[in-house]
């Protein structure tokens, strides 16, 4: 049995890994390669209205930031929607879907914010046999200047309006792709739901200038001496995407709306995290653009093995398990006490925990003449900075101080009862504990 079998909005795919609408899904050649490599689904790169094709810049389209060993962490792009003829795309979509009936094939769309424009293109898409559409309300560069993409996604009323037009003129599932370039993602998500959307997908890319060329004094990518902001994606944006996914998943108004999660999914673990936060599947782009389509094989094996280890038989077994654990700060248990513990067998004595704590935190790590680093429990506030700067995974961990024991920092005995800010005596607005 295929544990990864995915059913999203009634659209089945052999796994929950879809390629997002982006350069890798711009044409038949790439999409066939993706399906051969094992991807469960593809969202075809955004189609625009019939007419003269979109033009792209003829200089560089991408910029990046890197981590150690030039590992790509964040990618920025200024490529627009497909610059190929509409009918060429539609013919290719039809052929590919016919050849890969078991894979999900979604068509991303972006046309002017007029009912006529949408109702003209939707029948053409319907004829391709594709499984659904995704409304591109997210791209933040170029098209947004023309009143499309994120310009629509930033106005909940437009989202609702266009979604409704699409639901009226198209028989299959409609997914609304959201932009993160807003203040509170719950508003556009609610608008999509009000318009009848079957699902939302998020996040699209984030407004960004990825770097400045210090010789040209211009943003990168630089086109003849100038650069415009682009859309930021890749591993660096995953935390922002996860927050937005969780916000929609736990919003009472949208909690039952399926989510296709996008944003920095690079490994099976990223996918599992998004699904645990409530996503029904994930869409991937930058990982494929960095390493090629083969990365899906690691995602498939990794997620399968992890599900085996947990005893899960289907994605539904863990989907949304983490959603109820996401809460507001005020609900965190202030009576929970932990301390950092350094495993001396794993410690390589680099001293980064020490200097981070000494210079920038609570002076809670002792360094001996022999470079033995130990936590001072009477100073440690359990901030976790040492854990995060330690180069050895699992060397520093946080251990809970059990109820009944004394927190050496405060001198107080740890209590078992939950106690959060809402009932804290220092809170002027505290409510009496029940």
């Amino acid at each position, binding site marked *: 049995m295929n544990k990864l079998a995915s059913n999203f909005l009634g659209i089945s795919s052999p796994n929950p890994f879809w390629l997002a609408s982006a350069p890798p899904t711009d044409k038949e050649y790439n999409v066939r390669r993706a399906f051969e490599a094992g991807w469960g689904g593809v969202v075809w790169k955004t189609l625009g209205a019939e007419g003269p094709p979109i033009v792209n810049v003829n200089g560089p389209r991408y910029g990046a930031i890197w981590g*150690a060993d030039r590992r790509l962490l964040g990618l920025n792009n200024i490529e627009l929607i497909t610059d190929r003829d509409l009918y060429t795309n539609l013919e290719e979509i039809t052929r590919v879907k016919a050849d890969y009936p078991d894979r999900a094939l979604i068509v991303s769309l972006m046309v002017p914010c007029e009912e006529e424009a949408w109702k003209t293109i939707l029948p053409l898409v319907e004829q391709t046999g594709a499984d659904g559409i995704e409304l591109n309300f997210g791209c933040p560069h170029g098209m947004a200047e023309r009143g499309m993409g994120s310009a629509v996604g930033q106005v909940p009323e437009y989202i609702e309006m266009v979604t409704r037009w699409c639901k009226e003129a198209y028989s299959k599932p409609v997914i609304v792709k959201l932009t993160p370039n807003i203040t509170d993602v719950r508003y556009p998500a609610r608008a999509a739901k009000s318009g009848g959307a079957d699902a939302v997908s998020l996040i699209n890319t984030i407004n960004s200038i990825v770097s400045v060329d210090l010789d040209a004094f211009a943003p990168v990518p630089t086109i003849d001496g100038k650069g415009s902001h682009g859309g930021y994606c890749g591993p660096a944006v995953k935390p922002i995407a996860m927050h937005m996914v969780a916000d929609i998943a736990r919003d009472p108004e949208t909690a039952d709306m399926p989510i296709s999660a996008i944003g920095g999914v690079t490994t099976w673990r990223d996918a599992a995290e998004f699904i645990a936060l409530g996503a029904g599947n994930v869409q991937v782009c930058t990982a494929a653009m960095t390493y090629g389509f083969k990365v899906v094989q690691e995602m498939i094996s990794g997620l399968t093995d992890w599900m085996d280890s947990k005893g899960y038989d289907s994605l539904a077994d863990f989907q949304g398990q983490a959603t109820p654990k996401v809460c507001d700060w005020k609900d965190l248990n202030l009576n929970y006490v932990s301390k950092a513990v350094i495993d001396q067998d794993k410690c390589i004595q680099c*001293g980064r925990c020490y200097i981070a704590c000494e210079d920038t935190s609570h002076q809670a790590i002792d*360094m001996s003449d022999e*470079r033995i680093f130990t936590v001072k429990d009477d100073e440690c506030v359990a901030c976790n900075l040492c854990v995060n700067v330690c180069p050895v995974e699992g060397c520093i961990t946080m251990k809970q101080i059990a109820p009944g024991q004394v927190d050496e920092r405060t001198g107080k005995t740890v209590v078992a009862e939950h106690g959060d800010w809402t009932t804290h005596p220092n809170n002027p607005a505290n409510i009496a504990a029940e």
Partner: protein
Amino acid sequence: MNNQLLKAGVACGRLDLTELADNFSDLHPPLDDHQALVAADRCYFCHDAPCMTACPTDIDIPLFIRQISTGTPLAAAKTILSQNILGGMCARVCPTETLCEQACVRNTAEGDPVEIGLLQRFATDHMMDQPHPFSRAAATGKRVAVIGAGPAGLSCAHRLAMHGHDVTLFDGRDKAGGLNEFGIAAYKSVDDFAHREVEWLLQIGGISVKTGQRLGEGLSLEGLRADYDAVFLSIGLGGVNALSRDGGEWPGVTNAVDFIAELRQASDMSQVAIGRDVVVIGGGMTAIDAAVQSKLLGALNVTLVYRRGRERMNASPFEQDLAASKGVQIITNAAPLGVQKSGDQWQVEFEFSDDDLNPTGERFSLPADQIFSAIGQKLNSSELPELDGGKILVGEAGRTRTPGVWAGGDCASGGEDLTVTAVAEGRIAAEDINAQLAG
């Protein structure tokens, strides 16, 4: 097999020019830009880094590696050179595997240290064709004599010049550099690097080099003390220990030090003669350098014989492995008894001994066309400050027992006989001399 290799006796040109060029090319080729960035990315920027503690010159290694990784190799070079003005040579000859790289936490983590030595070379190589990065303080009018233009003397002279003093740098040979120029295996300092480094160092100004002048031969310590405000002795160990117990010469034996110097000064390796059968006696770096280079010149059989066990050899495990990989046979726990002529060759007789050097009575002999002795060097001068164990006794900051006289490098007591140690001692003494002259 090439017939030249089998040819008996001592002969030139055992290998063709291509093979020789390959054999004497850089032992550790320099990192290119990409390799340097990859290597630099591995540094954890440790706090109070163990590599710094392990460096005799206290170079701020995490800082210079971070400077490389952020695209500023010249800043990295300046970080290195401000602590170790011969950072370029040290990057080539330091036994990093027993110093900074041994201490690297990546060793603890994954048994594979950051390539600190190669990164140091990357940074300092960038500096060699740049304007000299240090400048002199206002002239003090003080004059200092530095005797011996090896690593300790060069380091001391440069730091004194920086402080505004006028330095006269004497050396007994015909050019400056000391062991950097005459005493290091050729494959560790290719492209005349030692000479180029000295030329670069002297760009600071205020250093007058006088070659061909040796203490006891034209120079007297008393005269120098009278003529200069301070004297720094960095005369190295000019003498070599004799093989025989009575100090007499054995026939057929050449000093390995001289052989190495000949190689370093040779412009054409095919003109350096080498025996088919070579025996090297000793267990230090000089012995290894002589043995390896004999092999690289085309000697068929090179045997290095050391009287104690391997673990007592002064040559590092890396150097021992290098010798073995080049085909040098290493025999330990065998002491030389004497040399006999046998036909056209020498026969060197040895006797095995235990770890306490007690003879076992078991003897063997090795045929040799050439015999190199490398059993240590010794001070070779009279009229020196008080000695201790055959070296000039120094206290804090290289002060000798003679007022106004400092000493550092191999000729001074304490510290390992390493280039990097000599550089550190030269710099530290210069700072002390400067403080004293200012006071």
